[in-house]
């Protein structure tokens, strides 16, 4: 007992609680911040606070009681964190200023370490949270929505991290921003269980961000669910990529990435579930592709990728490619278009499956051929191609197609 008291002893002596509210000691948050010492807590009663920019330079804990509103009046960067160990909980932060060059938003972290932003509501901001050179920060349980602009130029990202390390982004809901979450030059970060919906560009965007993991997120109805670009060693598991429909819309866009793993994700109702350009050494295991236009489009500059134990169900095209696809490895996938047989009962089809149909090749080279979709003519072409292959690459096949769906 004595030991536990001793543990809290320094905290009990040195930290104060400052109260902000109509009938409290401090009327504005600015005054309380000015009067506080390192390690203090500031409790803010409910109400609307229009205080321009609040600049925090020391370790403080700000807690909103009854969800007080911080209003930026469309002019200000509402909160600036310029110190370490800053905690912000329980606020509603609305109407930030807008500036294309300075990228201002509701909250900006300048070289902040060990800060926490949790349980807040962000509405109608330009950028929601902007992290600049952060280290070990946690962004958790926030609801970040905006409907300021219908076009991509007029709005910033929900959560934007730049040159940061070990950022944890968990359980957030993000809607209506440019990118839901944008990581630029961010390493060793963890993105878990976020819901990113109806963002104007991407649900989640990696740009030169290595060694990150994103797990169990849902990306619904974005221009592209996730774009991973110029990054290495990105882990992607258990995510849902759904309803990304449109001309140049993708579930997952991989551009110049390598050494990554894509496991147990669900891709359904996308125009193109995965588009790969310059992706090398990426492993795809146990993913489900259902009801997509194209399950995969693989440019011919993609090499040494492995596709094992995936399900391809009810896609218009399973695979499309611009070249010959010699260097990629398809093995033991389930294809609903497979018409082979299994005489030795080892649950593996006895004849290889060619996922690339002649029609897909023709459409790739000449999109106008899409007119012939689902006509007798196309069936005839595909059947002929199966007997006498002429255009589809002979080496592009799954040697061991599964007879039954992989349960993942």
């Amino acid at each position, binding site marked *: 007992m004595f030991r536990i008291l001793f543990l809290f002893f320094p905290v009990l002596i040195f930290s104060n609680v400052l109260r902000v509210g109509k009938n409290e000691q401090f009327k504005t948050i600015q005054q309380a911040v000015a009067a506080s010492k390192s390690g203090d807590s500031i409790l803010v009663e409910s109400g609307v606070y229009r205080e321009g920019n609040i600049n925090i330079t020391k370790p403080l804990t700000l807690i909103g009681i009854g969800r007080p509103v911080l209003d930026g009046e469309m002019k200000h960067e509402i909160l600036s964190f310029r110190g370490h160990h800053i905690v912000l909980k329980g606020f509603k932060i609305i109407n930030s200023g807008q500036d*294309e*060059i*300075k*990228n201002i938003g509701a909250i900006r972290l300048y070289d902040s370490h060990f800060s926490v932003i949790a349980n807040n509501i962000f509405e109608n901001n330009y950028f929601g949270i902007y992290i600049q050179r952060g280290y070990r920060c946690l962004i958790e349980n926030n609801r970040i929505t905006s409907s300021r602009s219908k*076009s*991509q*130029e007029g709005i910033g990202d929900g959560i934007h991290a730049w040159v940061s390390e070990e950022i944890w982004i968990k359980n957030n809901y993000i809607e209506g921003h*440019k990118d839901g979450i944008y990581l630029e030059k961010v390493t060793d970060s963890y993105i878990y269980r976020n819901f990113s919906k109806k963002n*104007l*560009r991407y649900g989640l965007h990696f740009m030169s961000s290595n060694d990150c993991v994103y797990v169990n997120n849902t990306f619904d109805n974005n*221009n592209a669910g996730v*774009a991973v*670009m110029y990054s290495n060693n990105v882990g992607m598991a258990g995510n849902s990529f759904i309803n990304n429909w449109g*001309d*140049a819309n993708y579930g997952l*866009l991989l*551009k110049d990435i390598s050494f990554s793993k894509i496991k147990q994700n669900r891709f359904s109702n996308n125009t193109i579930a995965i*588009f790969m*350009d310059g992706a090398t050494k990426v492993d795809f295991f146990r993913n489900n592709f259902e009801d997509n236009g194209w399950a995969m489009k693989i440019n011919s500059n993609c090499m040494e990728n492995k596709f094992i134990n995936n399900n391809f169900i009810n896609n218009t095209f399973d695979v499309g490619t611009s070249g010959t696809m010699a260097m990629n490895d398809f093995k033991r996938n389930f294809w609903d278009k497979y018409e082979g047989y299994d005489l030795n009962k080892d649950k593996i089809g006895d004849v290889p499956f060619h996922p690339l149909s002649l029609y897909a090749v023709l459409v790739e080279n000449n999109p106008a051929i899409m007119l012939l979709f689902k006509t007798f003519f196309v069936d005839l072409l595909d059947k002929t191609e199966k007997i006498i292959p002429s255009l589809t690459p002979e080496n592009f096949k799954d040697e061991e197609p599964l007879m039954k769906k992989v349960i993942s």
Partner: protein
Amino acid sequence: MNILKNTFAVGSVIAMLSCQSSGPKDIALGKDQCDNCRMTISALGYAAELVTDKGRAYKFDDIMCMNMYEGSNPDQAKNAKLYVVDYPTGKFIEKSKATFIKGGSIKSPMGGNTQAYQNKAAAQKAAAALGAGLTK
């Protein structure tokens, strides 16, 4: 004679219509993709375009992307015309006639951080305001 005249007129109209102008094509913001980095083009001010001698236009969201594309696709870049966007007006100008400013607080989509200006005086003024430098 009259028929010949009409045929000539119709023929010349068809000829004019079929000859596409070799200038830059408009960019549909939020729809068109950058041909180098595959991102959707969302800021017109930093966009660029490469038009091949056959008239095919490649669009880019950043001047750096066009430079990268030029380097890695010499076939397309050969004899191609290069266009950049005049930052204040959003209109295409030829790359060779533009003045570039780079650095400072300019932040472009792919990190090229370069703005192009038709007017050199405007470029100098903008460079002073943004803390950027003229590159040529």
